């Protein structure tokens, strides 16, 4: 049985997948969809036909989603990235490993910062060390993430 409200909700969820704070955009697009569906139904279409026609008029879901994502606030972008990483971690199920990895790197950064404070007098050199270390930290986390993901994919297949 075709349930119009459910279909509208799931279309909207697909358009706004992987993003945060999209309630307003979802409500706005749903209103648009219902306006178009009402018009199509007035012409004699069934709910299913009217929904398909309205969705087609809005264009390709991926394209619309990408265009809408361009207008995200910096906070929204940060939230989306965090949500994506979090969902990957929970899927992989190695949260403890990531915490340990973070603790090791944080210790390394703090140790080097303290050592450089004693060795070098220039603040610029300390900043330089930090700007090298932090990307290394993030890079190492990405490598770990990928290694675990490929491991789990192999395990699944």
């Amino acid at each position, binding site marked *: 049985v075709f349930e119009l409200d459910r279909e509208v909700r799931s279309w909207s969820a697909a358009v706004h997948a992987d993003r945060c704070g999209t309630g*307003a*955009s979802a*409500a*706005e*697009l749903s*209103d*648009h969809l*219902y*306006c*178009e569906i009402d018009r199509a139904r007035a012409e004699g279409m069934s709910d299913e036909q009217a929904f398909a026609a309205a969705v087609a*008029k*809005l*264009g390709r879901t991926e*394209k*619309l989603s990408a*265009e*809408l994502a*361009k*207008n995200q606030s910096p906070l929204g972008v940060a939230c989306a990235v965090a949500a994506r990483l979090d969902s990957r971690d929970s899927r992989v199920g190695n949260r403890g490993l990531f915490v340990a990895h973070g603790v090791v790197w944080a210790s390394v950064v703090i140790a080097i910062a303290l050592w450089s404070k004693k060795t070098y007098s220039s603040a610029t050199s300390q900043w330089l060390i930090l700007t090298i270390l932090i990307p290394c930290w993030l890079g190492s986390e990405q490598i770990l993430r990928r290694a675990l993901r490929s491991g789990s994919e192999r395990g699944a297949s």
Partner: protein
Amino acid sequence: MTPSKDLVAASAIPLILSILQRGDSYGYAIIQQVRALSSGELEWADGMLYPILHRLERRKLVRSYWGEAENGRKRKYYKLHVAGAKELAAQRAHWDKLHDMLQQLEGGELCSS
């Protein structure tokens, strides 16, 4: 004759701002108005309007507020901001200039000096 994609994209912002200058409106109504004004010749993929509206809002050219549609649904309305009116005036001047140039070229009133 259907205008090219580039022309449709370039004309979207001045059209949206002009519609909002006449009064507050919402996405679906804006699309219907453009369709009616162009007698159906200017066809937008309906979805292209919303990213543009959101961009205009981020640039503070328009403001939005929530209202209620006649059927009780939540509806997002857009209102032209002062900066939007200025932007529209500037864009109108550009389009007028372009129109003027095309008219001159068509009529042969070209000043070559």
